[in-house]
């Protein structure tokens, strides 16, 4: 019997620094599989964010740049504009993309930059230690919202996929999750499709991935999956928000 399962070439052999139960590892693998399947590893440049995934280049195996907080879409714009033959993607969390980097992501999407953004939404700041994010749910506790997010003072959570779909410029905008195997398979298809649109030089592509942060949510990995199902998914509805003509 031949080999039926192996590590994608686009992943390195390094151990990750991610916490037990964190879904970054799953999404890394899906991205790597898509890159391998499309045979684009040798012309791919990733852009790392600031946040838990700041060191994600240690786990991938191709060229990478590391951005300042929130600026990954601007860096990806610079790369893609001067080297349109390269395949470029940003990998960003919700503090990075939806807070400090809101301007950069909206304008990159609106210009229809031909790169891909993988957006990890786990409703909290991970790396800095569980502070409130723009995506934190009402009442959800965070280290900077010790009694839970007060929406009178901080507004409602930002739904990035919903926001970006309103731009008139064509794009591929989708929201997926990686809380169970069925969702993971769908997320994989969406990520691959996002890269396919880029390979075809078609449009900006954006995959929001509902993820977990057991450590900063204060839950076990299993409870975190359940909490995300019960609390995040009703507010962050899954599915394709926009598909190019």
């Amino acid at each position, binding site marked *: 019997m031949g080999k039926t399962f192996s590590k994608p070439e686009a992943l390195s052999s390094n151990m990750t620094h991610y916490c037990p139960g964190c879904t970054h590892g799953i999404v890394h693998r899906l991205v790597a599989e898509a890159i391998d399947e499309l045979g684009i*590893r*040798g012309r791919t440049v990733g852009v790392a964010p600031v946040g838990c995934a700041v060191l994600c280049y240690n786990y991938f195996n191709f*060229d*990478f*740049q590391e951005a300042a907080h929130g600026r990954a879409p*601007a860096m990806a714009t610079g790369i893609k504009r001067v*080297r349109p033959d390269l395949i470029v993607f940003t990998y960003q969390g919700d503090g990075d993309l939806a807070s400090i980097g809101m301007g950069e992501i909206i*304008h990159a999407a609106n210009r229809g930059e031909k790169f891909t953004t993988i957006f990890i939404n786990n409703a909290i700041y991970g790396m800095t230690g569980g502070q409130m994010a723009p995506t934190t749910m009402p009442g959800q506790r965070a280290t900077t919202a010790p009694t839970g997010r007060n929406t009178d003072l901080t507004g409602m959570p930002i739904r990035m996929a919903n926001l970006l779909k309103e731009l008139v410029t064509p794009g591929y905008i989708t929201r997926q999750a990686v809380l169970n195997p069925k969702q993971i398979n769908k997320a994989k298809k969406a990520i691959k499709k996002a890269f396919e649109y880029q390979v075809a030089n078609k449009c900006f592509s954006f995959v929001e991935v509902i993820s977990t942060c057991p450590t900063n949510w204060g839950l076990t990995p299993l409870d975190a999956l359940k909490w995300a199902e019960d609390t995040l998914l009703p507010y962050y509805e899954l599915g394709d928000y926009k598909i190019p003509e």
Partner: protein
Amino acid sequence: MAKVLMKGNEAIGEAAIRAGCKNYFAYPITPQSEVAEYLAKRLPEVSGVFLQGESEVAVGYMIFGAAGCGERVMTTSSSPGISLMSEALSYIAAAQCPAVFVNIMRGGPGLGGILPSQADYFQATKGGGHGDYHLLVFAPDGVQEAVEMTMNAFTLAEKYRGPVMILGDGMIGQMMEPVEFPDNLKSEPSNKDDWATSGMDTRKSNKRNLVRSLFLDPTELNNNNLALKAKYARMKKEEILYEGYNTDGNYKVLIVSYGTMSRVCKTSIDMMKEEGIEIGLLRPRTLFPFPEEAVFKAATKESCKAVISIEMSMGQMVEDVERCVRGQRKVDFYGECGGDIPTPEKIIEVIKELI
């Protein structure tokens, strides 16, 4: 090649193209928007990339991304815009990527004004962004020198793998002067395969490249800072530029002045010469590295009794002048920073008070 009459801002844009830079990202700001307007027209003619970013913050990182691929790239802005780009400058310096930044200075602080100024001397030469880094800073005194320095900036950015700044002012950007363009630069960025994220296929290599500024290991971070320090030490040996004006004779006072201000000082020196008063000028053409020994030597000439730094600021370069004179002469300062450039007559009045 024949001379052409060009506005400074447009000449800087043309110089970039002739230096082989076909990538330009910028955000509009007075008094340098003509660079962007010129290149918006000109770059498509040479199949180049022109993009107006959504902010100077974003533009700084577009430059970073492009530079990280090893492609020649430039942006231009003016003082408040450079403040916003200073974050990216710190990252680009740390990640050791070549890029050219032009600051056509206007008055500050805050929104300040839109008239010429030299009030960003500290920002340009002492950092601007966070961390231990320097820019190689050129200070042209007119359109011709702005063109030459812009073209050289690309070669030097690649030699040192770091950001280079052209520090002009609103007068240099806005005025028209006859200019002769040097021959086009041909050299390709050197050794970029060792570090640039140009894609492994492009390099025909299995080794991937990283462009980064995060070094969590203290030894690694210290080593990166030592590498930067070594580059700045090399710049001090190899890149210092300055001009002496009327410094052969026995001058009583040495003026230190750069850019537009130095041209006014030259007129004052010529006028005083007719009255029999000898005044010398030392004009730094690089502000970092600063011509330390040249300033010391010119200041300590026997005939020279006093030194004065004349700037369109409230006194910034004077701190470097004082440092270089090492207490051997009294160092005075004169400066205005509202946008009105001091007249030759005013400079003469100030100098005569010193004598």
